[in-house]
């Protein structure tokens, strides 16, 4: 089946069986290797991408589903965007050790902050619960994303 979608701003067409996991199609046909493969069962979140702006686990999305949609990975994050702020915060807070989970975390954070720019730490913890990290113990990741959320809150307050 021919499946066309926008991947990180580029029109992309692949010819794959529609029941292939999107993650495999992204990593193989599209060579989007920032999309990681972890548990292969929808638990770890390392294959998280944005589909029409919402974080989804690409191992749980059948390829046929993305026809006509947009898919974003960390490779498409632009300078000056929310995603870039989150990446910077990960660096500042040392929220990365091995880094394998980071693309998924960054995209889940983008989706969460896009919905609620001033999300509090408790809600953030819940929003990021679908992403597993085996190095950092999560607190530094929460520190990093909270920092970006805090800045949004500060900016808002400053404008009042």
């Amino acid at each position: 089946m021919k499946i066309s979608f926008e991947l990180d701003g580029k029109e992309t067409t692949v010819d794959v069986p529609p029941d292939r996991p999107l993650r495999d199609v992204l990593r193989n046909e599209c060579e989007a290797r920032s999309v990681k493969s972890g548990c292969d069962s929808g638990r770890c979140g390392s294959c998280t991408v944005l589909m029409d702006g919402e974080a989804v686990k690409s191992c749980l999305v059948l390829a046929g589903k993305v026809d006509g949609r947009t898919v974003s990975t960390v490779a498409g994050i632009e300078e000056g965007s929310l995603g870039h702020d989150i990446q910077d915060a990960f660096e500042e807070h040392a929220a990365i050790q091995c880094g394998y989970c980071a693309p998924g975390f960054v995209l889940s954070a983008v989706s969460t902050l896009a919905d609620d720019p001033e999300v509090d730490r408790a809600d953030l913890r819940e929003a990021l619960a679908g992403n597993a990290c085996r190095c950092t113990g999560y607190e530094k990741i929460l520190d990093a994303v909270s920092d970006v959320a805090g800045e949004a809150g500060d900016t808002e307050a400053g404008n009042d």
Partner: protein
Amino acid sequence: MSADTDEMDYYTPESIPAVQRRLATTDGFTKVLAGGQTLSLLVRQGLVDADALVDVGEVPELSGVTVSDDSAEIGATTTYAALRADALTDRIAVLDDACSVVGDRQVRTMGTVGGAVCHADPALDVVAALLCLDARVTVGSVAGRRSVPIEDFLVGHMRTDLADDELLESLTVAVPGAQSGTAYEKYAPVETTWATVGAATWLTIESGEITDARVALTAVGDTAVRSPGVESALVGETASQSTLAEASERVVEDIDPIDDGAASAAYKREIAPTIVERSLAQSLERAGESR
């Protein structure tokens, strides 16, 4: 490529009649695909090898909530996230509770309520919530439409009453009134994972007396199950913590757990009364709140 015998057909009809015509006319094993959060795993494990997939995600009238006075109709492809965001779940706490503990944010974005009911895994939280709300399942085919109580729709472990050419269109649930409170309590060893035991409850309190009680459980039988034992022990009694605790013990009469990935049957049996009691306590508290 279409001559390739391994090639799977993939359809994206845009209306309910178009889905039903497709289901009526497609040869071979045809599977309806909604959010795919459970189906994709079955496909990968080789447990579902369909000749055709009918993706119902593009059918607008299958998604969304319609509320009338004391009942609400939930479209089959309404996602957990959409249902939580809908004003309906402010009025039905048990649905909000259950939708909030399903999987994680990513899964709730894609996963649908109708998909859960059709998948009929007894460990799916929202199914027990729907059972507690006396949900009716509306299914339709080119031959017509029928409405079935969810208890009859769930016929066994991951088995439903849905015929091959039928589509689950919507679920109709009771909306609790001012004197009622509802809740869903889940125990799982790890946040975001499958329930060891879950309990959906509904209590109606009039002048301090329990006049209606509904208890439905997750992951303790072939399907989500009601507990008539607990329900009958509650109705007519004075609403108090001790009444709830005593009645909750009777849940063991109505459950038949098996060892599963979450826990042993013995462990489920051990903790079920506690989970039911916690859920009932929450429902009682909520029944007291003015809404």
